[in-house]
């Protein structure tokens, strides 16, 4: 177990390193160096002295070669110095500290929601294979797989207006927007967040449900299930006792794919629903080529994904000793 954790964290460090290179490439991609774009965004009013420009250039080592620049950026990053956002005139760390908690507060419950809903549905579908309910669930699953998150968000806004006469979106409903904190405001926030979780989770539920169904069907066709049935074990107990346990762990290990997808979903859905996560921040940064901010957001989100996958892998190994260490 300890060995596995060490080996796995070694792998993780390599992945983090590669991600940092990719994020740096994102910074470097736009034509022209970023001091130019910085000056461009400052053109309105602020006067930048020549000294300040030189100071900026040397702070990020723009006069040095690309490897040195990368290394300087990366070591700064590790110390929490992610540079400044030209657009907001604040440090990236500051901005992230403001927005990131909400991203996590939505993504983590969504992940739990996905597995809590998808696994029972998958089990039901597999056990009642080819029943009308199974067909219906599979069909609905296919549809939800095909509808991207942001479209579901649009549909939610439309339905909210059309059938409930209220506005959907934002972290608070208009009447609480400026109100001081109160129990009502917290409940309102939770309500809006749970809507977001529901919207973001649909695709994940649809995908995970299919995996669970497939895995369990494979397991149910094994000979030992037949043997247990012949011994007269009751059907539900028989299924829950072994096949489900065996089938669940590969399903849980899909988290390496599910988590990045959920974060993607959170960011784009938050943009549509106007929830102040890192999503709208990233979009603004990208639109105005505020590349330090954009790359830092991408980097931090990816690192969180990697760490999340790492933790769930460890939990999985701990819970299921059959997984090869």
């Amino acid at each position: 177990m300890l060995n596995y954790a060490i080996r796995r964290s070694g792998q993780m460090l390599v992945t983090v390193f590669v991600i940092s290179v990719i994020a740096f490439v994102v910074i470097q991609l736009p034509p022209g160096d970023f001091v130019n774009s910085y000056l461009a965004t400052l053109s309105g009013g602020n006067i930048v002295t020549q000294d300040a420009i030189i100071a900026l250039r040397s702070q990020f080592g723009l006069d040095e070669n690309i490897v040195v620049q990368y290394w300087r950026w990366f070591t700064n990053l590790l110390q929490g110095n992610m540079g400044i956002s030209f657009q907001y005139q604040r440090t990236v760390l500051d901005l992230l500290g403001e927005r990131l908690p909400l991203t996590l507060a939505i993504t983590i419950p969504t992940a739990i929601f996905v597995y809590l809903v998808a696994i029972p549905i998958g089990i039901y579908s597999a056990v009642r294979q080819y029943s009308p309910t199974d067909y219906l669930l599979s069909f609905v699953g296919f549809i939800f797989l095909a509808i991207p998150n942001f479209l579901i968000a649009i549909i939610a806004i439309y339905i909210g207006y059309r059938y409930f006469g209220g506005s959907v979106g934002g972290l608070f409903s208009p009447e609480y927007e400026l109100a001081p904190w109160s129990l009502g405001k917290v409940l309102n926030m939770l309500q809006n967040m749970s809507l977001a979780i529901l919207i973001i989770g649909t695709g994940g539920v649809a995908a995970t449900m299919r995996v669970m169904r497939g895995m369990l069907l494979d397991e149910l066709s094994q000979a030992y299930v037949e043997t247990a049935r012949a011994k007269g074990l009751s059907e539900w107990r028989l299924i829950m006792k072994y096949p489900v346990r065996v089938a669940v762990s590969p399903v849980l290990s899909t988290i390496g794919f599910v988590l990045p997808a959920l974060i993607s979903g959170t960011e784009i859905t938050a943009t549509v629903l106007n929830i102040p996560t890192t999503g709208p921040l990233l979009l603004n940064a990208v639109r105005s080529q505020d590349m330090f901010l954009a790359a830092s957001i991408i980097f931090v989100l990816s690192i969180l994904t990697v760490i999340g996958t790492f933790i769930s892998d460890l939990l999985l190994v701990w819970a299921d000793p059959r997984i090869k260490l």
Partner: protein
Amino acid sequence: MTAEATTPVAPAPVATSDGVAVRIISPRRLMWWKFRKHKLAVASAIFLILAYLATIFAGFVAPYDPASRSRNLYAPPQGINFVDETGQFHLQPFVYGWKMTRDLKTLSPVYVADTTQKFPLRLFVQGEPYKLFGLIDADRHLFGVDEGYFHLAGTDHFGRDLFTRLVYGAQISLSVGIISVFLSLVLGLLIGGISGLYGGWIDNFIQRLIEAIIAIPTIPLWLGLAAAVPRDWPPLYQYFAILVVLSLISWTSTARVARGRFLALREQDFVTAARVYGASQTRIIAKHLVPNLMSYVIVTLTLAIPGIIIGETALSFLGVGLKVPTVSWGVLLQESQKVQIIQFYPWLWIGPAACVVSVVLAFNFVGDGARDAADPFSR
């Protein structure tokens, strides 16, 4: 598993008395038989073929020019009628004209069907001129009206026909899927092949790179990469830039599948046999590995197209992908991003959304059917 358990899926070929086999069942035919069993996949494939044909003949299929404006702004879709207001049945379908009033509170236009105006629908009508394939002058359209107007999917804020714009948008959105997937195939096979062939630290490095790319949430990375596309580039350049951005991420799944199958196939006895009788490395790859690999790669690609189409739609929708005057489904959705439009003119987003969802759904069904067919020897 015993050897005798591998009964072929298809009936054994029958030999006639002169010893000539009546029917030789190639693996390709077996795959087709297996695919054909998935009715939904076959129907989806036909739908997709029709959709791609429509993009090729966009000028003919669309009743109007994508930029031409009518006086009807924000007009909802016109329903096709067979029965008129008096309850009489007409074999020739027709549409009613619109009578516009304004909502006194919101001042937004409200359209009511005007039963005094009836425009009969015809096939192959003469209409606005267009260039077929961008070359041939033509003015015949698949359907339309001789007089009056017909907006099957409604109009937008300039009074442009939405159905027409959806058809032209399909040209971009559908081609992005195919071309990007082709690019990622080239990238994936190249990188995956290098990875499998050389092994060692190159393989290790490429595997870590793929893992890293998979760990990065797709949409943020796409956004970051799309930010690098200069605003002032002409639409065609932007189009290709977005293609590259999309394929830069989606090659990973192809590379993973290609490498995995490659490694598995390399251990198969028929490859060992080929080595033992002295077939060259190139020959083994070309005649033994690639033909057995392709069906899996094609399945992966089919299943990758929906992701790419959604990616283009999402980027354009967020305003960092394709931009007006380019017409794509994502661009059309972006125009309807305002809450007012979502609420009051739902056809403006339902149209493109329905197109995206139905195409993605169809690709998923085809991919599902193809996945089962890719291994025709399993039961």
